[in-house]
């Protein structure tokens, strides 16, 4: 199972093993990671699961995968950065084992 490390906006890290095929958002909810709200539940409709993919993982996971995701990223509460993603749209595979994402100060 790929391991994902979530780094809060104050710098605390929490890691979780997440099933292949689940999203980075789902992994946060299942493991009690604070800082991901995900109020719509992965429907590209709320922009409250915003995260910043660590620069080391930018090539693998740092680019939005749809126009809907790009549109919703314009509605985030915290500033977007070049590797901003909606964590519901990052689906885990073995290639992403070790992924690090940083969480914004606020989701709304």
């Amino acid at each position, binding site marked *: 199972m790929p391991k994902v490390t979530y780094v809060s906006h104050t710098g605390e890290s929490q890691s979780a093993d997440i099933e292949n095929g689940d999203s980075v958002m789902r992994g946060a*909810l299942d493991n*009690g990671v604070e800082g991901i709200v995900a109020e719509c*539940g992965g429907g590209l*409709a709320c922009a409250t699961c915003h995260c910043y993919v660590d620069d080391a993982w930018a090539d693998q996971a740092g680019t939005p995968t749809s126009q*809907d995701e790009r*549109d*919703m990223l314009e509605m985030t509460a915290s500033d977007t950065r070049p590797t901003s993603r909606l964590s519901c749209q990052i689906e885990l595979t073995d290639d992403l084992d070790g992924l690090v994402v940083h969480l914004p100060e606020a989701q*709304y």
Partner: protein
Amino acid sequence: MKFDPTNPTPPKVTRRIGMDQVPDHVPHDLIRQSGIIYGPEFLADPYKFFPAMHDRFPPIFYDVTPFGNAWVLTKHEDALFALRHAEYFSTEDATPFPRNPEDYFNFIPIEFDPPDHRKYRNIVDPYISPKAVLGWEDRIRNLANELIDDFIDQGECDFPEQFGRPLPVLVFLDLMGLPRDMCDTFVEWSVDLLHSNDREVMAATMAKITEYLQGQIAEKEANPDDGLVSKIVHAKIDDRPISAKEKFGFVIFLFIAGLDTVFATLNNIWNYLAENPDKCQEIIDDPDNINAQVEELLRVFSVTFSGRTVKQDIELRGVQMKKGDKVTSILPACNYDPDVFPDPTKVDFHRPKKIILAFTVGVHSCMGAHLARLEVKIALQEWLKRIPRFKAKPGTQVEYKMGGVIGPHELPLVW
């Protein structure tokens, strides 16, 4: 005393009804009697009424009604705030269905706030996530086509009875693991519960629904299956088995939430499309844009409201609200807020994507939203493939009835 979800007690609530019961902190100039859900002007055409609210009423006003007085929010921004700040706007006593105070239960998960809320959502999320509902796609498509088979050759149908109602109810029954032959009974119950506005009829209906669902809960306890009712009754909360009160509060809430909303939405959309063949053609000609088409139709035809109870005093947009006040977000009006959706009454399938309030926002955002979107999408695709041109039967007068879910009740269509 710590709240015990396995043995809840009713909250102390203040109900204020009518002009005699307007509290002193409400400024006189913010009092209105808008007639939402019952006034003749509203019922003549709710979807003209909602957008016009931005011109006719202050952005927040105190609505005095025979069903209970409440602050009304019509601005998109204010509804987002209220729905996202449970510390001020609580879901306690915000679900207006009669419950026996001697045998009280909570509607779950809406009446629980984080962190407990997540424990209950985690039980159902694997069934209703965007990915999980795709597993239902073929079945919903087949069902839509079977329904159409029954009437297409007649050149006409009673849309609500023959398509709008059975499609979501049958999907719901399958999802819950309940027998399909309950379809007509469920329809009857949901009509009596949601559209009677008579507390005696509502209470009698609640009793019937309670008896049936308790029987189903017992059945699934003995004979587990793949349905959602079975999943709930065998769930664990933390490390203990889910209690009888929790099982019932969860299952009955899904029943109430799952039956009427997609139905009303489909009726609204087909009523609109019957008068707008150019929009039908646009959907047919641009199949890759279906998700945006669905989202825009959900924006302009949102069907319900979201109530809260003020938990601590707060000032919103300069208006003082006090603990115990009721607040209603008029979601269909918020979705016509011109500050967020320019030219709001125009149905534009190429609008920039924004947060729409059809399913509310916040932790209590509708858990059936992904299923609802999928049902609307499939209904549009399969219907328009086979019946690309249709209109209301000549002489049809579209009527809306009183109730908390808005949609036309009669919609005979011809093609």
